[in-house]
């Protein structure tokens, strides 16, 4: 019994110590972001569930400045580091070969059937 109690105490102290050693998440993302190149394309996942692809404008001490990649430009957004759930560089550039092929096939099939339907419509 005494041995078991000692073991539990050691585990709890060890666990507490381990938690205490982990830096706050915000500090981790700040350190990571400050090593990224300005202008890098990044994917950000926020704690509220929002996911955004953006261009890194600046990594300040307090906030991350991002320009979301949108169809119509939006203002630069200031994101506190502690709101970030994950941050990663987005290496994707343009559409991949698979998507290009799929788009081509879909367009071709669509155009074929569209033309066919129009031809059928003109037949009395």
């Amino acid at each position: 019994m005494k041995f078991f109690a000692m073991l539990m105490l050691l585990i709890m102290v060890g666990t507490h110590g381990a938690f205490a050693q982990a830096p706050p998440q915000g500090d981790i993302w700040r350190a990571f972001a400050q090593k990224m190149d300005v202008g890098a394309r990044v994917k950000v996942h926020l704690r509220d569930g929002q996911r955004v692809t953006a261009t890194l404008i600046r990594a300040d001490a307090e906030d991350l400045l991002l320009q979301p990649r949108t169809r119509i430009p939006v203002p630069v957004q200031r994101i506190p580091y502690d709101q970030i759930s994950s941050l990663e560089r987005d290496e994707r550039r343009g559409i991949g070969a698979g998507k290009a092929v799929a788009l081509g096939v879909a367009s071709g099939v669509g155009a074929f059937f569209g033309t066919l339907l129009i031809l059928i419509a003109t037949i009395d």
Partner: protein
Amino acid sequence: MINTPIAAAFMAAALFVADAAAGQERPAISMTPDAPARWDLAGHIGWLASDKSDIGAEWNDWYDTLSGGVSAGRYLTPHFKTEIHAALAREGRIYSQDPVLLTAPFPVFRSREHYFQTASVGAGVSYQFFENQWFHPFVGGGLEVLREHHRVRIPEQFVPQRAPGVPAATLPAVDFAPEVSYAARPFVTTGFKWYVAERAFLRTSIQASFSHRGTTHVVWAAGIGADL
């Protein structure tokens, strides 16, 4: 023809969802531009298929034809939009056959040509996925009123000699007076908008309308439009 309870329930649900959406909290990262689109105008051509199983035989119970239309939408939020649309279809045709007893014991089958032409106006709401992106799938629903013009023609038919002493005959064509009917139908739709410029898009969709008999109309449409 009008399924009022279903239609009313559908519209009420749609309006409730739109109202709830209008009160959504803003996200941490705003994707909304300084001058967001308020209106969406589009035109389309499409292919209409309509169920006429109450008239046509099993092998010929749907007609299909070319259609075209316009729509105007008002964004309530970046995702929710109310929309009205109007569409006009070309005449479509199905056949039916009726037995006519000219001489016993075998009847002659006369073909009837049923011509239908529909026009519709509708209103509904749609939910557009994503915000301020180049590709936006959407789903929606609402209520539309269809005006259907129906005319029937029995073409001239030659009946050859079928028994000794019974001469061949030519049955004259018959044209019946056209009928016009109106019906309200709930509809659901899905499709996508693919932007080709900041405020101009290609749009394609499939819309299905319903009655107590099931699906009555299906329209595939493709067109262009702009956000204003």
